[in-house]
């Protein structure tokens, strides 16, 4: 579904990604792990064409999508829940959800069923929501584009435990329905319940990758790369 090879990227002069390579197969759940500032979000942005790749390749399905326009990448089946929510502040909840929607399994009613809270705030503008509500909206908005690969960058930030659990459940369902997921999240323990593989990034490079079992069985990975 998604394959990244030797990806490099920079903000102006400062190079942030040096060599990123990984793959998300059809129906697979892959996590990107790493400490703050290691380049996880930058990787996502580069894949989505929001930041130019200096080198390397991004394949979506069989198509080379390196440095393609973001909308083409999205239309190739990618859905993004960006870091920091980025809901549209001047659109109300309903508009946020339907403005970019594409037809498919997920529709307005289903998203509201997933997040009843949003249903109670349909008339609020994006910036008149609590942090957690914005996060739900960002997830709902991405679902409404009916992607084949969901990319979630810290999508559970600021969500209450109950809601977080519902997100996990929802992602598991998505997985069962055959969708792929690429996820960055700090709740590594929760991720290990349904992720297939993990990719650890440090200083813009992939320093470890392996399947769920490998991560569980080698606790020092977490110690080494995610803790001090």
């Amino acid at each position, binding site marked *: 579904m998604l394959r990244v090879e030797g990806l490099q990227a920079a*903000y102006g002069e*400062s190079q942030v990604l040096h060599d990123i390579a990984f793959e998300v197969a059809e129906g697979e759940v892959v996590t990107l792990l790493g*400490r*703050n*500032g*290691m380049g996880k*979000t930058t990787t996502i942005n580069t894949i989505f064409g929001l930041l130019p790749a200096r080198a390397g390749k991004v394949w979506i399905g069989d198509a080379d999508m390196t440095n393609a326009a973001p909308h083409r990448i999205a239309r190739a089946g990618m859905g993004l829940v960006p*870091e*920091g929510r980025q809901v549209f502040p001047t659109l109300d909840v309903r508009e946020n959800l339907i403005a970019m929607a594409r037809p498919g399994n997920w529709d307005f009613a289903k998203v509201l069923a997933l997040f009843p*809270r949003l249903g109670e*705030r349909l008339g609020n503008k994006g910036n*008149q*929501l*609590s*942090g*957690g*509500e914005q*996060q*739900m909206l960002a997830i709902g908005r991405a679902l409404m584009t009916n992607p084949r690969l969901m990319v979630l960058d*810290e999508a559970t*930030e*600021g*969500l*209450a*435990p*109950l*809601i*977080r*659990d519902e997100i996990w459940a929802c992602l598991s369902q998505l997985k069962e329905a055959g969708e792929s997921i690429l996820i960055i*999240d*700090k709740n*590594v*323990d*929760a991720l290990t319940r349904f992720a297939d593989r993990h990719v650890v990034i440090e200083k813009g490079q992939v320093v470890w990758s392996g399947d769920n079992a490998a991560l569980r069985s080698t606790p020092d990975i*977490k110690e080494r790369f*995610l*803790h*001090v």
Partner: protein
Amino acid sequence: MSLLDVRNLRKSYGALKVTDDLNLSVDEGELHAIIGPNGAGKSTLIAQLSGQAGSDGGSVRFDGTDMMGMPMHKRVRAGMSRSFQITSILPGFTALENVAVAAQAGQGSSFRFLAPVADEAALNDAALAALARVGIDDRAFVKAGSLSHGEKRQLELAIALATRPRLLLLDEPLAGTSGAEADRLVEVMRSLKSELTLVLIEHDMDAVFSLADRISVLVYGRIIATGSPDQIRSDPKVRAAYLGEETEDA
């Protein structure tokens, strides 16, 4: 004795009662956590306490002084600082300048027009210390806008610290930080407990239960329970409204 005393605080957006006759008291020296579902009104409460948002009624007393109607910057001067859930920094300033300007607020007049501020060692040292405390002193000279999300969250806390408050209101300081950084911030907060009074809003229950002296649970604008971590953890109302199965994991 209680440092912060909130009585019958109210606020609504149209028909929505965000803060509904809320009472809360925070004792000097304690770490008081506030938890509750999304949209319960936690950030709104902080906004009301800090003066960012107005209130429709009720009273807020800080150290015996009435705070109602006092503008935000005066409340900070009085010793009450806050951090933001949705990162609020000065993106064009370096991380160091972000913190130094916060330190500047507490150190004499800023109507000084000619002396170069970048040379003021007292401000820079204080700023560096705060950055070091949250663990991003190596990023001191990076423009705050180019920090990663997690680093910005750390900076957010450093700024609040640099104002040297007596009461610190923290709105989800751990959100967006993971692993090592989160651990570090938890340690920072633990060490802060001996220096000042803290109100902590968090959805990270591990942190809340390990740090809090007392916990209040806010649901739909009302405090439905206040008590020690153990009392709260076992309160069925709280489990139903908020915690779910999460605590089992911890």
